């Protein structure tokens, strides 16, 4: 009998993802699971996933500066990049959702008690589908830093939240994009929750002259990489023993 095997999605490279428990991020202490995770071989349930067609998208939602009667306050920026898999293949037509604080570091959320002004012209959410080449582009304003109560004098570096689906349940990703040369980054427990230095650095967008628009907006580039596909395995034939070649003398 031939066993049905197929390609799942790759597991994360060691050290490139946070552990669930990161005590310096105090909220993780009572919310991180303590039992070992059970390894889940990917089934049809994990290699499939939701998709969102153009009919579910508001094409204006990629411009966060154009959702109200006036212009929001702050530094206008263009955030663009590509969504790729680990082999560099573009991921077309996949949903990206973003949300962020306003220029003063305040979210339009009832639980945000930071004493900074709301901006009547800025809600701070956007979404779009990547194009056929996996490209995306949002127009927004640069979010402000804001204080939080994780530890004494704790401030979150400026960041934009990103939510992506990719082609499968297994490729789901929620992350945060940071800005270059932010002095708050070394002290931020959320940014620093991942062991691998280069993995952390990839969360920091690059200043982008190419997409900077003269007399209008600064460009920042942020590429997002989703899990790649495993190599398609050979079908295994239990009754057929593979030929083993002897190597060398």
């Amino acid at each position, binding site marked *: 009998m031939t066993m049905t095997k197929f390609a799942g999605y790759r597991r994360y490279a060691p050290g490139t993802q946070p552990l669930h428990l990161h005590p310096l991020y105090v909220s993780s202490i009572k919310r991180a699971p303590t039992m070992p995770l059970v390894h889940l071989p990917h089934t049809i349930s994990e290699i499939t996933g939701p998709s969102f067609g153009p009919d579910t998208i508001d094409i204006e939602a990629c411009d966060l500066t154009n959702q109200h009667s006036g212009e929001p306050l702050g530094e206008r920026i263009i955030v663009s990049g590509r969504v790729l898999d680990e082999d560099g293949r573009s991921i077309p037509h996949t949903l990206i959702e973003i*949300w962020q604080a306003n220029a003063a570091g305040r979210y339009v959320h009832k639980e945000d008690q930071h004493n900074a002004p709301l901006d009547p012209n800025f809600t701070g959410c956007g979404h779009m589908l990547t194009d056929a080449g996996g490209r995306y582009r949002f127009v927004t304003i640069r979010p402000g830093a804001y204080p939080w109560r994780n530890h004494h004098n704790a401030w979150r570096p400026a960041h934009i939240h990103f939510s992506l689906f990719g082609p499968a349940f297994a490729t789901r*990703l929620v*992350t945060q994009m940071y800005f270059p040369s932010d002095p708050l980054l070394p002290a931020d427990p959320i940014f620093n929750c991942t062991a691998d230095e280069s993995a952390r650095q990839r969360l920091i967008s690059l200043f982008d002259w190419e997409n900077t628009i003269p007399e209008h907006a600064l460009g920042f580039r942020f590429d997002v990489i989703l899990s790649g596909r495993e190599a398609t395995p050979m079908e295994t034939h239990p009754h057929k023993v593979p030929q083993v070649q002897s190597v060398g003398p």
Partner: protein
Amino acid sequence: MSVPATTWQTVGPFFSIGLERLYCDTLAGPGVHGERVEISGRMLDGDGRPVPDGIIEIWQANSYGKYAHPEDKTDHLVEPDFSGYGRIPTDAEGHFRFTTVKPGRAAAPVSSDGQGGAENRLQAPHLAVSVFCRGLLLRLVTRIYFPDESSNSEDYVLNLVEPSRRGTLIAKKISAPDNMAQSDGGGLTSLEWNIILQGSGETVFFDC
């Protein structure tokens, strides 16, 4: 040369700004085939306190066992009005609730890292679940299985879980609230399934 996948970061406490547009707690409209189920429960932390800033996402096959996705190559019927996706936030007491149809038995071929002899069997009906909240640096992945389902005993994934913890993945039948039973003419099966993030009765989470 491959670049590793981007690092996860927490959704934080204010995710509703960006995610509420797709909140959906009614996965199956009136024209969708199948047994209606209402699944409700609570998300609790390691001290048993409710998680008011949590969110779950559901991904499931339809009642014929078919995923609305091109990689599901089975011959079962796709229903245009059923995407199989839901996104539900918790409320101030950590409660969540959604209605859907009980999925059929999806195919169970497993990826090359799956061992064991069950690859060609169908999976038991289940929902794939992602859990997000402030404090979780990356999502948690779990599953909801159904009570009184004889195929649970041969389900490939359930059998990867030690028997004493399997119950955390299986919803329990409860009696429907009166208003629900009346409004739906009694055709709704009510189930309870809780998410215990940590500690006694901790839900089984998967490395996906």
